[in-house]
């Protein structure tokens, strides 16, 4: 089993090497472009770094928030399976565990980014914005001063990350101990741990969405936003699980995984793509219908604002995250054949990365957004993410041999 894992590691390391190379290449290209346009550096932005540095910091934040979400969803998915006493998903459990390998490094990076680059990402961190009489004073932002302060924000951010990391670690340890010692006591402890984690995650996922993503557009607010970000993370996390399972299966591992398991993962991806659209639409339609200026500014910026530079990605977002998975995964065969599922999973991961792009960029980069640096950074993140995930996959057997439901999972039929 270690050998299998090592094989996977080497296999994917090769992929990563090329990915990293592309990433650096793109970034260099972006840098040149940035230097060629010195006019942009003289923007009217009061505080923070040059456009190039701002782009790098913002896109680091953007990709990191996306990958942390995918990472924690691994644990959430597993926790839900535990609480539901679900048997079928045991074959992908180790992939879920491995996804959370990114949590700690990603979390540390997120804290560092906030401390160093907060002026570039968050308008509300600017000096004097909450002080009456200051030139920068903004009454609406000042009204949120109880919640959006440097110290409180940092404490909240660290607590979400610590809660997620601790529970991921705990469930992983229980699972590893179960491999060694067997017995059902580990399973029952895991169920309790998972239930507690889900309650905490329900709160922290929403709050992290407000903090990390919604406070970018600090004047704006939406009560759907927590769900919206969660839906995006959730469907990407399931797509990542399915995609890793497909790669492992095609490399000759996960022999117990068959088309019935892929069918179920496919159904979840299909269903939650629709769920994401549902949440997206629930947010969009109320804002569109009420047409209150303070709410509809969010969609004005994305639909035609900044000389229409976000308009195409707005529609692209809907097509790739809803229309494509909806039509492509509709038939039974599409969910059972790895090739179709693989295409859809990749599309969904790209789609939800651009969903986060659309959430973060208009509020931070405004009219100075770009793609080369962002894609380059996303690829570097992907490489680092895959190194950690595959390393953790290699650490333990790909089948949790003593899990009480492993037999049920192997004989799963849909």
């Amino acid at each position: 089993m270690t050998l299998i894992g090592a094989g996977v590691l080497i296999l994917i390391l090769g992929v990563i090497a090329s990915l990293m190379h592309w990433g650096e290449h793109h970034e260099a290209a972006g840098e040149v472009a940035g230097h060629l346009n010195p006019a942009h550096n003289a923007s009217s932005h009061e505080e923070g770094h040059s456009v190039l540095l701002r782009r790098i910091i913002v896109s680091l934040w953007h990709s990191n928030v996306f990958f942390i979400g995918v990472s924690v969803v691994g644990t959430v998915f597993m926790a839900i399976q535990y609480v539901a006493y679900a048997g079928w998903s045991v074959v992908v459990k180790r992939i879920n565990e491995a996804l959370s390998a990114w949590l700690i490094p990603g979390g540390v990076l997120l804290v560092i980014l906030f401390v160093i680059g907060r002026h570039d990402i968050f308008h509300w961190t600017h000096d004097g914005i909450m002080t009456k009489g200051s030139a920068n004073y903004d009454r609406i932002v000042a009204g949120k001063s109880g919640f959006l302060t440097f110290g409180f924000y940092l404490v909240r951010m660290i607590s979400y990350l610590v809660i997620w990391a601790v529970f991921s670690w705990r469930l992983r340890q229980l699972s590893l101990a179960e491999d060694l010692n067997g017995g059902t006591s580990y399973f029952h402890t895991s169920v309790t741990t998972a239930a507690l984690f889900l309650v905490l995650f329900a709160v922290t996922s929403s709050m992290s969405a407000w903090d990390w993503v919604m406070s970018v557009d600090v004047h704006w607010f939406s009560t759907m936003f927590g769900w919206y970000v969660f839906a995006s993370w959730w469907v990407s996390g399931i797509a990542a699980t399915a995609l890793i399972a497909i790669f492992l299966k095609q490399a000759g591992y996960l022999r117990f995984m068959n088309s019935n398991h892929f069918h179920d993962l496919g159904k979840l991806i299909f269903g939650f793509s629709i769920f994401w659209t549902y949440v997206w639409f629930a947010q969009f339609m109320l804002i569109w219908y009420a047409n209150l200026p303070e709410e509809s500014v969010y969609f004005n910026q994305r639909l035609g604002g900044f000389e229409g530079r976000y308009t195409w990605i707005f529609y692209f977002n809907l097509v790739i995250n809803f229309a494509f998975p909806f039509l492509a995964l509709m038939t039974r065969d599409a969910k059972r054949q790895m090739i179709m599922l693989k295409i859809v999973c990749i599309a969904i991961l790209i789609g939800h990365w651009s969903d986060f792009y659309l959430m973060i960029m208009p509020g931070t980069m405004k009219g100075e957004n770009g793609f080369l640096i962002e894609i380059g950074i996303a690829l570097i993140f992907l490489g680092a993410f895959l190194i950690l995930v595959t390393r953790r996959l290699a650490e333990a057997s790909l089948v949790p041999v003593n899990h009480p439901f492993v037999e049920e999972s192997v004989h799963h039929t849909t």
Partner: protein
Amino acid sequence: MTSPAALATPVAPATDSATHSATKRFALGIFDDEDVLLHAIDNIRGAGVKIYDVFSPYPVHGIDDALGIERSRLPIAAFFYGMCGLAFALWLQIYTLGFDWPMIIGGKPHIALPAFIPVSFELTVFFTCHGMVITFYTISKLYPRIKTPVLDVRSTDDKFVMAIELDEHSSQLPKLTQLLRENGASEVNQKEMTKF
């Protein structure tokens, strides 16, 4: 096909042998256990006998594959019901709100597609689910009728009933009885059914 026989009501055995044309004869193998049944299906089909149908009190995992039943084409029908519902919903809203009686609501255009999405969604689901239920009941002959034929009422309780169609003289019956017995049937009966 494993019909949910619990929905059916028992009926007296068809004694009228005058109506030969509509009468079918069956050998009924009664099984007590689901696993025995599944193995028996494999063996009996392996012996070249065509199984008419199997009746069970509840859905049995893997029985469709064992019986070699083709996948249902119901999803295809469902897709078209959904399209009908969607078309109807769009027509209804665009015609009524856009042409027949245009009204300004909330300063929006007469044909405001985002506002039409919820109704379109609901009607699509409505048409799909009703269409599917009606189609399923019709093709499974579960629609309401005065006399519902049931081969053996115990298939609504705790027995699995395998029906194999016989020819007019029941000539294969002794052989079949032996085959069913060998494969774990607890009893083998013969039954005639009209209008089945």
